[in-house]
């Protein structure tokens, strides 16, 4: 569905901004200047207004991401279950990148995320729209292997 179609459904167009940004991010891969411009036009806002709001939220990306975005939960309960920083360190070594970076082949971006509400099943990591819980280094290896095979 295009952002414009959402805009017609709501009493106030601007209320659809968060949804429109998701749609634009999906279509453009990230919130590029063109994507921001298009959302602004559709919702009758200035690009600056759109950018100002978008930049508040950590899930909107203003630069290109890898095909698989690994989001490691750095919550306390993940840390207590040997995840969090340890998992981040493991993935940094494994992928040869730091948090916030993307592998050269464009396959993986490594990010941290606040509590994923997996405290009862920690450590947890989100990869695109899949949630992985009760992680161990072995399982992480398997997940990376699967993702590499699935490209």
């Amino acid at each position, binding site marked *: 569905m295009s952002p414009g179609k959402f805009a017609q459904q709501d*009493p*106030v167009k*601007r*209320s*659809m*901004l*968060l*949804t429109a*940004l*998701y749609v634009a991010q999906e279509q453009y891969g990230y919130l590029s200047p063109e994507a921001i411009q298009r959302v602004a036009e559709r*919702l009758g806002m200035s690009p600056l207004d759109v950018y*100002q*709001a978008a930049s*508040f*939220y*950590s*899930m*909107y990306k203003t630069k290109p991401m890898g095909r698989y975005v690994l989001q490691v939960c*750095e*919550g*306390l*309960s993940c*840390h*207590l*279950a040997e995840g*969090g920083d340890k998992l981040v360190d493991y993935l940094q070594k494994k992928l040869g990148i730091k948090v916030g970076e993307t592998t050269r082949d464009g396959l993986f971006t490594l990010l941290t*995320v*606040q*509590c*994923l*509400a*997996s*405290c*009862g*099943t*920690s450590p947890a990591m*989100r990869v695109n*729209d899949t*949630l992985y819980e009760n992680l161990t280094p072995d399982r992480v290896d398997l997940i990376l292997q699967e993702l590499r095979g699935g490209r």
Partner: protein
Amino acid sequence: MFEPILLRRVTLPRSDSIDVYLANGGYRALEKALHEFKPEELIDLVRKSGLRGRGGAGFPAGLKWGFMPKEDVQKYLCVNTDEGEPGTFKDRVLVERDPHSVIEGAIIAAYAVRATRAFVYIRGEFFLGVKSWIKAIADAYQRGFLGKNILGSGFNLDLTVHRGAGAYICGEETAMLDSLEGKRGEPRLKPPYPAQVGYLGKPTLVHNVETLANVPHIVLNGAEWYASIGTPRSTGPKIFCVSGHVFRRGVYELPLGTPLRTIIYDYAGGVPHNKRIKAVIPGGASTPFLTAEQLDVPMDFESLAAAGSALGTGAIVVLNEDTCMVDVARRTARFFAHESCGKCTPCRVGSQRILQVLEDIEAGRGRPGDVERLHDLCEGIAGHTFCPFGDALVAPIRSSLKLFADEYQYHIRHGKCAVAA
């Protein structure tokens, strides 16, 4: 053994489906509410039940409903699914495994305050929950529980899903309203409260997922039945989330007032390797720590306040004797520094400074006077911020400094941790 009320369906196969919900007594409360109650009578019922908000603040739900104006103006209901308090995973269980119980509660609440438009505001990170909500709402429409003339009552209600996009502060109700309006999710000044000036300036009732899930049971079984569960001032069942150093992490539904020790040892199975408990976070990352001497505290609003902490979201994080409390404080500070919305200076700058000092101590770069510096920073934030976030950030830090002062001193003096050494 307490027979679960809110979680009684979640272990059934396909518990998220409307058919399973209907086969297990679902939407009977809605039928009863719409046909046997006037809206004011429902408000009265919920007030008598003693139900208090389960999102952290514990505000009486009936009172909140009563604040909504009676005039015939556009009113809104907002289902707060922005569960983001570290340690908390109860709303997620309800939304993913029993979404209709929340929808039913939401429709009844909307009817009671005469709101005809409702929103689910769900954390952007909860993509499973988003799917679950969308499916459940579509099914509820199809069966006539949402839309026009619900169950022939003449009451109309539309319910749609809005995704947040990664901002803890949007769990604060006025920040959520701004986010719903497509703005930066920064808190508004209160008063006016959302019941007067809410979404698009119209009266809005905002409720946590778990709070709403209680409503159908109150309608079906009565206020007296509900008030007989728990303690006189903290009534009803509560979903406790237990994580950290315990054998069986998970959600446990028990009456408010259940002793912390019972939850940790009888339900969560105690601490692995026979370790002793050093500290417990009783209600999520923003609640002050309890020590091993306080394990007999009843888990209700009043008892925890008396113990110097808070019930919060009921998210219990158990920390064993090997835990470095400076490290825990640093991680907590990191969370709050990351999530400070930046609107006001004491919080924006103060949270970063606290984190910096804690990081220095943790990395062996602590200096004499750091503890006093942390106290000063807390002093500068507490009560001086725009919204309760500042107090939420200061509470665990202050309690950590007070209860585990020797650990801080050891870190500063020796440049390393006493526990990890």
